[in-house]
């Protein structure tokens, strides 16, 4: 629950002014609805009485009837504004939540970052974020608007009709609603989170069954897997049924509550009438207002029924929105060597302008070493300019070290946007970089730097994508360039051109490449073999 409150605060603070405007108009709509019905009821009763006693001519019909028309039009207009402003506020909040998540994930360690490539992990994050989208529109705004409307209506009725009628409506609705919503929350929190979890498990399970179908068919265990998924489906639907029961129960209780409160207001009006404190026309106002307030009450149950799903999602998402605890940044020591490695059996001191190839069997820890130098995995025995990677401030470290991982990722957008991920560059610089990785012809053939790539860089071959990522690394112009299998998937001639081009593009940089093939290339002045 505290996680949900954190998320709610984050969403509201995205643009409190937009949120306040939306809430104010929600209240205006509800108040105008209550005023419209109350005024109409009063008007008809009053005109009826005036007609009966024959003073119809003296009765001022124009102000009330103008009021009725004004409220009818005003309510439709405010409803329009309310819809626009609450959607505006919601869209702002959704964007803010996603940006905060991006920043949060950017700070995580290599393991978490690598997991982000899995579709299952990503869909889980997305569906959690989707679950939180309802926090504003279905939970916070309706609750705030209902509370404020009830308070304002109370004071208006005390002034217009009298304490007993106003009191009966407030004392009927508030505790009644609280009880119904608490009960709904208690009954729905478990099934709503089970429904969400089983739906995600069913999705993962379906994908796994189809992708692994050959093994399942050959082992003849496909029927068992299908049965397991049907069980999961049954569980998901059972949870949905419990949720539906809880929600329908709350709906029934709410409509009875509305009737009871309306009748209580009616009887309170009769009481005032009997005490001759008000006339019949004023006595009915409470009844009509109480009926109109149903509009503020009924929407609350949807948000509350989703509470379980929201709480679960918030618990998973909230930790990603926390700010980092500041690590003590230490100043670099200029006199120290650029890179000192005393780890994984290595003992090396590397200077600017050098090029080192690291080989070793797969699984020996080559990639781990690169990630440790980059500061994404904790480890001892690495000093960059005399300071361990974890003691560097993040921006300073990134200015010195750039790494191009083996399974690099591109994004939907133009080639230029992909290259300029880390900073703006002129077209001349971009051309030089793609030339260095022997990609200039391929890009010209595709239509130049402004041609678009699909999601995940779709549209480029594996080798082209690889080289585009290398060019992106070159553009950072780091002092230390780390390359994980830079020539994987390239034919021998291109591989040769790429390595030579990279060396020529960054003559001053220390280049370290992890390779299982081609480590004997001339640009490397040293080759070390990593052993387990």
């Amino acid at each position, binding site marked *: 629950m505290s996680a949900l409150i954190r998320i709610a605060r984050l969403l509201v603070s995205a643009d409190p002014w937009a949120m306040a405007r939306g809430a104010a108009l929600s209240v205006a709509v509800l108040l105008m609805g209550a005023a419209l019905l109350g005024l109409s009821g009063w008007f008809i009763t009053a005109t009826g009485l005036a007609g009966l006693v024959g003073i119809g001519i003296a009765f001022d019909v124009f102000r*009330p*009837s103008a009021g009725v028309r004004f409220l009818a039009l005003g309510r439709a207009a405010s409803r329009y504004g309310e819809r626009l402003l609450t959607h505006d506020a919601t869209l702002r909040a959704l964007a803010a939540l996603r940006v905060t998540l991006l920043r949060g994930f950017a700070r995580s360690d290599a393991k978490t970052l690598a997991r982000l490539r899995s579709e299952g992990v990503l869909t889980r994050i997305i569906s959690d974020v989707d679950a939180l989208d309802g926090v504003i529109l279905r939970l916070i705004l309706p609750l705030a608007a209902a509370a404020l409307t009830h308070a304002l209506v109370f004071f208006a009725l005390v002034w217009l009709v009298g304490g007993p009628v106003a009191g009966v409506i407030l004392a009927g609705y508030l505790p009644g609603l609280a009880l119904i919503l608490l009960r709904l929350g208690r009954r729905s929190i478990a099934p709503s989170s089970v429904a969400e979890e089983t739906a995600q498990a069913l999705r*993962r399970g379906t994908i796994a069954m189809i992708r692994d179908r050959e093994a399942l068919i050959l082992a003849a265990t496909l029927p068992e897997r299908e049965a397991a998924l049907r069980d999961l*489906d049954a569980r998901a639907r059972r949870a*949905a049924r419990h949720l539906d029961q809880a929600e329908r129960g709350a709906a029934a209780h709410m409509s009875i509550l509305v009737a009871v409160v309306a009748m209580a207001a009616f009887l309170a009006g009769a009481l005032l009438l009997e005490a001759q404190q008000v006339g019949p026309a004023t006595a009915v106002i409470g009844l009509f207002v109480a009926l109109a307030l149903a509009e503020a009450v009924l929407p609350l149950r949807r948000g509350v029924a989703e509470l379980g799903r929201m709480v679960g999602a918030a618990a998973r998402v909230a930790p990603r929105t926390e700010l980092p605890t500041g690590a003590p940044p230490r100043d670099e020591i200029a006199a120290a060597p650029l890179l000192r490695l005393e780890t994984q059996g290595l003992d090396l001191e590397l200077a600017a302008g050098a090029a080192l190839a690291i080989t070793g069997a797969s699984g020996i820890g080559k990639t781990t070493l690169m990630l440790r130098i980059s500061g994404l995995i904790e480890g001892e025995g690495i000093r960059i300019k005399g300071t361990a990677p974890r003691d560097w401030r993040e921006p300073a470290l990134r200015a010195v070290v750039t790494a191009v991982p083996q399974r690099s990722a591109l994004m939907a957008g133009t080639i230029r946007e992909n290259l300029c991920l880390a900073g703006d560059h002129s077209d001349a610089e971009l051309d030089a970089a793609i030339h260095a990785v022997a990609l200039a012809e391929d890009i010209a053939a595709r239509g130049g730097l402004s041609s678009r790539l699909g999601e995940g860089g779709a549209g480029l071959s594996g080798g082209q994508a690889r080289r585009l990522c290398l060019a992106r690394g070159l553009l950072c112009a780091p002092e230390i360039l780390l390359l994980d299998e830079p020539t994987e998937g390239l034919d021998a001639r291109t591989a040769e051109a790429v390595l030579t081009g990279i060396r020529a593009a960054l003559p001053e940089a220390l280049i370290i490449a992890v390779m299982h093939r081609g480590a004997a290339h001339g640009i490397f002045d040293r080759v070390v073999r990593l052993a387990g």
Partner: protein
Amino acid sequence: MAKDESGAAQRPGSRPGSQIGARILAPVARELRIAGWLSVLSGALWPVQAAAIAWAVSGWAEGGAPFERAWITAGLFVLCAALRAGLEHRAGALLFDAADQTIARNRARLLTREARAPTDAGSARIASLTVQKLQLLQPWITRYHVAMMRASVLPLLLLLLATSQSWLVGLTLLIAGPLIPVFMALVGMAAEDASRRQMSEIGTMNDMLMDRLSAMLDIRLLGAADRTALDFSARAEALRASTMGVLKVAFLSSTVLELFSALGVAMVAVFVGFTLLGEIGFGGWGGGLTLGQGLFLLLIAPEFFQPLRDLAAAWHDRAAGFAVVAELDALDAADRRPVLGQVRRAVPLAGAISVQTRAARAALPGRVVPLPDLTLRAGQSLALTGPSGAGKSTALSALAGLVPLASGALSVCGTALDDTTADAWRERVALMPQRPHFSDETLGDWLDTRGTGADPAAALALADARDVVRRLPGGLEARLGETGGGVSGGEARRLLLARAIFTGADLILADEPTADLDAETAGRIIAALRNLQAEGRTIIVATHDPALAAAMDAQLELGQ
């Protein structure tokens, strides 16, 4: 748009409406009808409540004691409210059942069909249809039909009641009412468009988020995290601005609908007021109106418009439901690759392993792929080579009974491979696919595809994969996740081989077992395959790797 999709998915000559009715709604038609009537009945109780209030208040005006009629009214009003709540509750239960049955039926059908006879649709698409999209049938079934029924009965009933009190009010409603369906058609479309815009806005934002999260390792290593976040926020802001532009227009049209009903009610209220004052002498039957009649009209007028507005709101549920049905229909009509046999445990096919094909052609969706003529006896090994697309993987699938033949002959252990022998044949075959897929289960369970519970140590040793398991935290208890995070490409391949060996199969089919591996790692896989053959197993590999092909007894080049 939904119409276009469903239209495109129809087979020629069938009408979309009837097919959707038959497929999705016919089995639950009874529930829908009963629920609809219960809900109509609940709506019909409102005039009773309105009359009770009108009766009590007119009593006050006539000078009766305040509580003379109040208690009876209050009792009747609350009783009707409880009755209505009960009716709606029951209707809701029936509707939920109808939706639940429909979803369950379609989901079960997808779950038992899509792995046995797959189409070209990706697993993620099938999963999202099976889990999320089927769920969209629920609002369509639970909201739209009841809204339709209420809209076709209740306004008529209330119109009759209103006219019975005042022909002028009846006339007002009669004129305002039919305008609503006209506007509804306009607004329904606009509202549909608006909701689709918003869904696609959120969808676009989610795609952008997914794209950036999956590239986050690169972004971090490039030091581009801040810039990426700023860029995302700028794009999200641009998307918001453009969406709000669309919503401004779309919401305007639904406001027109609301305005009509609000003005209708206001006109009734003002007219009734003036009549009661005696300033308007016509409109009622035989002169003016009484206070009771006036209040009654005021209370039922909004309910005349409400069902029509509910129907407008439910309109896009129907469109969303139709879109899902269209997708289901398209999937039904798609070409499939049915598996041979029943897919169940069977007594293994008897006799020594042998495989023979003659002029066989495999039937894939939309095309046939010729298979090489080959003859293989127990203990032999064979490499299928040839360029990509020559049909190597298809040949392995056909040998495992995963793809039916279009023509020609394929015999195994001396008998034809068909629906009656496939299950028994597969008891003796293992297939090592090119790309590993690790599910969310322990490595031990993943290796043990047949659920024997035996110790996989020997299979791991044969596949040279013992050190892979030893290195993993938790060993056989480790969970690799779907992409096999924590193992390298070569290690995943050795685990796949161990998994194939562990089934105890006599024939091992391996698809590109050494692709993308360095020479040293590929050498370990080749050695493991040779060990297997030395153990007496029969091996067929599909490969580009000359070293692997040379290590087999024979090579057969496809695509010649």
